[in-house]
């Protein structure tokens, strides 16, 4: 991933003042795509009328667009919603679903709810950790795979289960999961 320093024109829409902001984007490949995503985010904030109480929804939108929430994005949200940066950062770090680090191309989310736990979900976590040589919350150095755990996604009847790129798979054995993870890891871009 190339690190590019982008100088962007961002309209802080409620005041109508045009502000310049520098975005150091590690995940941003070109100025055009970044600009478009910022535009979509700004449009979303306009839709919620720049209300501070919509912060969680705005952060969800930002994460959907950028994949994770880095500081320039959080600062941009704070400025546009006229909130202290500390509050935006505080909210982003409080909730488990917000990711502050870039995620891998694929995400393997192992459910560690009670039903999955008693059916051996820890073995699934161990299997992915061994196969991909990463720990929970980490991404492989080649950016292929992220391993995360979640606390019950509410389909306990098919425990133990994993969410592989938003697709729920269960019940799954440690061997089957290892195979799936290996398939992902050996994929060519």
């Amino acid at each position, binding site marked *: 991933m190339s690190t590019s320093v982008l100088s962007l024109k961002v309209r802080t829409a409620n005041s109508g003042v045009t502000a310049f902001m520098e975005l150091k984007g590690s995940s941003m490949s070109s100025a055009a795509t970044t600009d478009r995503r910022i535009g979509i985010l700004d449009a979303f904030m306009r839709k919620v009328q720049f*209300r*501070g*109480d*919509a*912060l*969680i*929804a705005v*952060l*969800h939108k930002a994460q959907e667009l950028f994949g994770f929430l880095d500081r320039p994005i959080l600062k941009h949200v704070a400025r546009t919603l006229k909130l202290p940066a500390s*509050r935006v950062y*505080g*909210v982003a770090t*409080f*909730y*488990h*679903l*917000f990711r502050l680090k870039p995620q891998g191309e694929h995400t393997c989310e192992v459910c*560690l*709810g*009670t*039903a999955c*736990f*008693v*059916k051996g979900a820890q073995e699934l976590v161990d299997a992915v950790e061994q196969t991909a040589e990463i720990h929970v919350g980490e991404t492989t150095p080649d950016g292929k795979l992220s391993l995360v755990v*979640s*606390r*019950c*996604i*509410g*389909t*306990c*009847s*098919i*425990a133990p*289960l994993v969410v592989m790129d938003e697709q*729920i*798979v*269960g019940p799954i054995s440690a061997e089957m999961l290892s195979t799936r993870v290996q398939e992902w890891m050996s994929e060519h871009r």
Partner: protein
Amino acid sequence: MNIADLHTIREAERNRCKPFTIRCCTSSGCRASGALEVFAELQKQVQESGLTDRVDVVGVGCPGLCSEGPLVESTHPAAIYPRVKSEQAREIVRISLNEPCQLEQLDPGHPFLTGQLKIVRARAGIIDPERLESYIAADGYVGLQQALQQSPETIVETITVSGLRGRGGAGYPTGLKWATVAKMPRGQKYVICNGDEGDPGAFMDRAVMEDAAHQVLEGMAIAAYAVGANQGVIYVRAEYPLAIERLQLAITQATRAGLLGTGILGSGFNFTIEIRIGAGAFVCGEETALIASVEGLRGMPRPRPPYPAERGLWDCPTLINNVETLATIPAILRNGAEWFAAIGTEKSKGTKIFSIAGKIQNSGLVEVPMGTTLRQVVEVLGGGVPGGKALKAVQTGGPSGGCIPAELLDTPIDYESLSAIGSIMGSGGMIVMDESDQMPEIARFFMEFCADESCGKCVPCRVGTVQLHRLLTRIIERKASQDDLDQLIQLCHLVRDTSLCGLGQSAPNPVLSTLRYFASEYEALLQPPEFPGHTRRKAPIPLTVI
């Protein structure tokens, strides 16, 4: 829309029925087993066989037996097909042409199907959750229509007489809560539906929101009319995308039909609902934390009083009820308070939905009258532990609850009986454990969860849960002595007595309840004291710790 329009829609929808209906479950559980492919294939097969005027393929909510999904049901002849694959769709469609069918069917006398009393989930598995007309045809919005013809005070009285208690866990009388909010001076009030079902292993609220989103909206509208609110918020956890999608769709449909908005059903009552999505925080199930989260803040609880009924969302009087509680309301309005009060036990009225999972044959959702025994739910409806293993314990109430040993399975399920044996009703999650599960491990699992989910505001919870987790780890790793166990018990009491909110106060419950019933498992892991001469005050494990 007025009452006559509602009636017209109901009649039109009922007359629209085709002679043969195939229902395919399209809720999250079956989707994960491939239900959407089956549903698409069923529709395709009906088209290809030219049966579109005879056969109706409907995507329905969860029929309950999730472990056998995807489930497909045909009406003539009445049969339920488990674990259907898309290749079998053709065979099911051909039944309408009286062709023989070799597919495996569920036994219609299966205790899981016959042993339930469905009030809240009466429509699940029958109506199409994505169509307003389908809900209206099943007597939907009749409760609201009847409510609007009565005074708000009468409705609060009805709910009080019905004896309904909060289904979120604490079991606070719903009528009393409504009366408190209704008594607040006129002005801005809110109704919040708590759909932040964070308990791992509980999924009944997800099912209710997915299968009968309109029923939740109807319950909210009745509640709002009764307490004098005009704005509602549904707070749903982000882990439930289908529930969010269906609620949003239901709100759009209801608003367009005039069942939400201004002048609802020709009355002077106005009510709007918006959805707020969580972002993964268990503590947001606590009402003051939930309000903070709706306001866009970190989900941290605050001391009560003032209770949300006095000062809640934006400091206005706020009624917060759980999804299942609100979804029960329309049925009470339709059938009357006495009808509801006749079901259940003296202090716990009505039915309760339980999600049974873990080491169990039939996993899924069951709705049974209060007072049904745990044994009935786990062994008869659930079919017991598979693989010939012995049942060891049933965990109820999630991280705030406790483990009930097999010998106490004859306990009736109601709020008081469960708390008397050291557990709680909770939101209704039941995890069955067999002889291979080690109770200290289970206790540590829940403590890890609580330590992870503690918001960090108060010290007993933030520090106490981490220390409890360390002590449990020491015990499991066989590094602990009797002194450590004594300290564990002491610290459990301290965390329970001094934490700010329910999360901390109930975090020691899994430890205390497993210590109460499975003390020998802990003792077997202990090491002899490091300095045998040194004797600390001996505190035997109290058996009435909770």
